C-alpha cells in the first residue's frame, strides 16, 4: 500500500459497491419476495404472481448476477487503485 489516503479511497469505493449490492440483495428477496408480495399480487410472471416467483426462483437469479457483477466491478477497482494481485 502506497499511502494511507489511497488505502482509504480504495476502502471507501469498496464499501460503496457493497452497500449498493446489499440494497439490491435485500430488495429482490425480502422486498419483492416477502414484504411487497401482497401489494404486487396483480403483477404476474407466467403463471405465478411476481412475489411468488421472486421468492421461489427470481431472487436466486438476481443473487447470481449480483455476485458476478460485484466480482468484475471489484477487479476494476483493485486495478484503478493499484492493489490487484
Amino acid at each position, binding site marked *: *500500500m502506497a499511502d494511507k489516503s489511497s*488505502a482509504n479511497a*480504495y*476502502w471507501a469505493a*469498496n464499501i460503496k459497491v*457493497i452497500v449498493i*449490492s*446489499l440494497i439490491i*440483495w435485500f430488495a429482490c*428477496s*425480502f422486498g419483492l*419476495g*416477502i*414484504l411487497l*408480495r*401482497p401489494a404486487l399480487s396483480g403483477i404476474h*410472471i*407466467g*403463471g*405465478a*404472481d411476481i412475489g*411468488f*416467483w421472486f*421468492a*421461489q*426462483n427470481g*431472487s*436466486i*437469479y438476481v*443473487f*447470481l448476477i*449480483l*455476485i*458476478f457483477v*460485484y*466480482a468484475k466491478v*471489484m*477487479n476494476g477497482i*483493485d486495478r484503478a487503485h*493499484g*492493489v*490487484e*494481485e
Partner: protein
Amino acid sequence: MDQFTLNLIVVGLSFALYFGIAFWARAGSTAEFYAASQGVPPVMNGMATAADWMSAASFISMAGLIAFGGYNNSVFLMGWTGGYVLLALLLAPYLRKFGKFTVPEFVGDRFYSTTARLVAVVCLLVISITYVIGQMVGVGVTFARFLEVSTTAGLLIGSAVVFAYAVFGGMKGITYTQVAQYVVLITAYTIPAIFISLNLTGNFLPQLGFIGGYAPTGGDVTFLAKLDQVVTDLGFGAYTADTPNMLNMFLVTMSLMIGTAGLPHVIIRFFTVPKVSDARISAGWALVFIALLYTVAPAVGSMARLNITATFWPGAVDGDTFSKPALSISEIDSNPDLVWIRNWEKTGLLAFTDKNGDGMIQYINEPAAVTAANKALADAQKALTEAAADADRAPLEAAVAEAQAARDAVLETTPINKKDGAPTLASLGIVGNELTTVNNDIMVLANPEIAALPGWVIALVAAGGLAAALSTAAGLLLAISSAISHDLIKGAIKPDISEKGELLAARISMAFAIVLATWLGYDPPGFAAQVVALAFGLAAATIFPVLMMGIFSTRVGKEGAIAGMIVGLITTAVYIFLYLGWFFIPGTNVYPNTPDAHWFGISPAAFGPIGAILNFATAYLVSAMTKAPPQEVQDLIQSIRVPRGAGKAQAH
C-alpha cells in the same frame, strides 16, 4: 435385471470413482490437508463448494418441504442461496487475504487472544457437530432404502466410506471427490425433473414449466392454478397462499442467509483458491452450481405434489377432482405403474388405511372436528371391546351408538373444503383421510417411480442422495478436525508440534469425529431438522457477527468479541431449547413449540438474526468501555482489506 441389482451397480460405480479420486489426490502436507495448498481453480472450487453445501436435506428433503409448505417454505430457497451474496461481499475475499487455514485462527489473530480463538472453536464444534448428525442420519436412511439393509447397517457402511476418503485425502482429496459427487447429484436431480416437467407442462425446462400452462388439459390453465385448485378441492391450503406470519418468514430467511455465511465448513472452502479475486468469483461459481438444483426444486416439489395427489384422485388429472372415484386398493395391487405405493409403504414413508371400507383410498385434509369425532368413536368402541365378560354392556353400547351418531352428524355438516357449495364429507362417502402418512422425503426419492421413469433413473437418484450426504459429511468432518488439530492442539495445547505430528493429529481427530458422528447419528437427539435449525441459528448469532466485526471494524477488541460471541451463543441456544427441550431431550421444553407460545410469533428457527443483533450490540458496548486493538492488529486489518500480496498460505 431387477431394481436392486441396478441400484448396487450404479452406487458401486460411483463409489469406485470417489475412492479412485481420493487415492489420486491424497494429502501429503498440512497445507494440502487443510486448504488443498490454495491451488484449486475457482470453477472447480465452486463445484466442490456446491456439493459440500447441498446436503441430504437439500437433495432429499427440501423439495418435499416446499411441496407441502408451498410459498411459506420459499424461506429455504432464498435463505440457502442469499447467504452466498453475503459470503462473496462481506467475508470470502478478506478471509482469503488473511491466508490461514481455519475460522478460529482468524478470530484468534484479529482479536489477539487465545481465549477468543477457543470460544470460536467451541462455537464451531457445536455448529458442525449438530450439522453432521443430520448428514449421518441421511446417509443411513438412503443406504437403508436403496441397498435394502437396516438403517444401522446403512449408517455403518456410510461412515466407513467417509472414513476411507476423508481421513486420507484431507481437503485436497475431499475437494476433488466433491467435484465428482456434484456431477452425480445434479444429474440425478435434474433428469427426473425434466421428464416430469415435459409430462405435466410440455416444457423441458422445469424452471419455465412450473410457471407455464398445465399440459394434460391443453395448457389454458396455468400449472400453479391447477395445483391450487386440486389441493384446495381436498381442503388443503392453496400452494401459493400468503404466509400467515410475515415477520417470522422474514426472520427465518434472514437466519438461514446469515447462518449460511457463518457456517465454518462453507467458509473454509474459500481458503483453498489461489487469489483474493478468485475467492469473490468462486462464491459466484458455487451459487451457479447450487442454483442448478435450487431453481429446479420448487418445480420438483410442486409437480410431485400434483402427481401424488392426482394418483389418489384420478379425476384430477384432466377434469374435476371428484369426477372419478378415488384410487382403489385393487388398482394399487394390479397396476404395474403403481407398484411404488406398496414398495414405499414397506419403508413407512407412506401409509394408508381404508377407514370407510369402500375399497378405495380417499386422500383429503381432514378437518379437526372430524378427527375429534372419529377419536371419540374409536375410544367408545375400544371401551366396549375391552369390557369384562360380566360387565353391564348396555351403557357401553349406548355410548358407541351415541358417538357413532355424533360422528355421522359431523360428517353430514362438514364440507370437504372452504369453497361455496362444497359437497359434505357424508355425500362423498368419506369418513376421514385415508392416506395417513406421506413423508416429505418421498417427493424426491419416489419421484421417478411416481412418474414411471426407467429403472436406471431410480438407481441414479440413490447414488445422488448418497453423494449429497457423503460430500457434506466429509466437509463438516474436515472443519471439525482442523479446529481440533490446528486451533486446539497446535494453537493452544502444544504449539511446537511438528508438521508430521499435526497431520497425524488432524487424521486422528477426524477419525474420532467420524466415530462420534456415527454414534450420534445412530441415536439422534430429536429431529434432524430441529438440530439443523440450531446449527444455522448459532452460525448466524456467533461466527457471522464476529467475522464481520473483525473485518469491518477497527474498534472492536478482544473483550467485545468474546462477550459478543458468548451472548450470541447463549441467547440463541436458550431460546431454541426453551421450545424444543434442553439439548433436544423430549419433554424438557419450558413452552410448547406453537406459534401462540412463541415470543412475538418468532419460531426457534427464526431467532438467529436476533442473536446476531445481540452479539453486535454487546460487542460494540463492551468495546466502547475497553481499549482499542493494538497497532499490529490495526495493521492486520488494513492488510486484509486490500487484495495485493495474498500469496501462498503461511505455514507459520
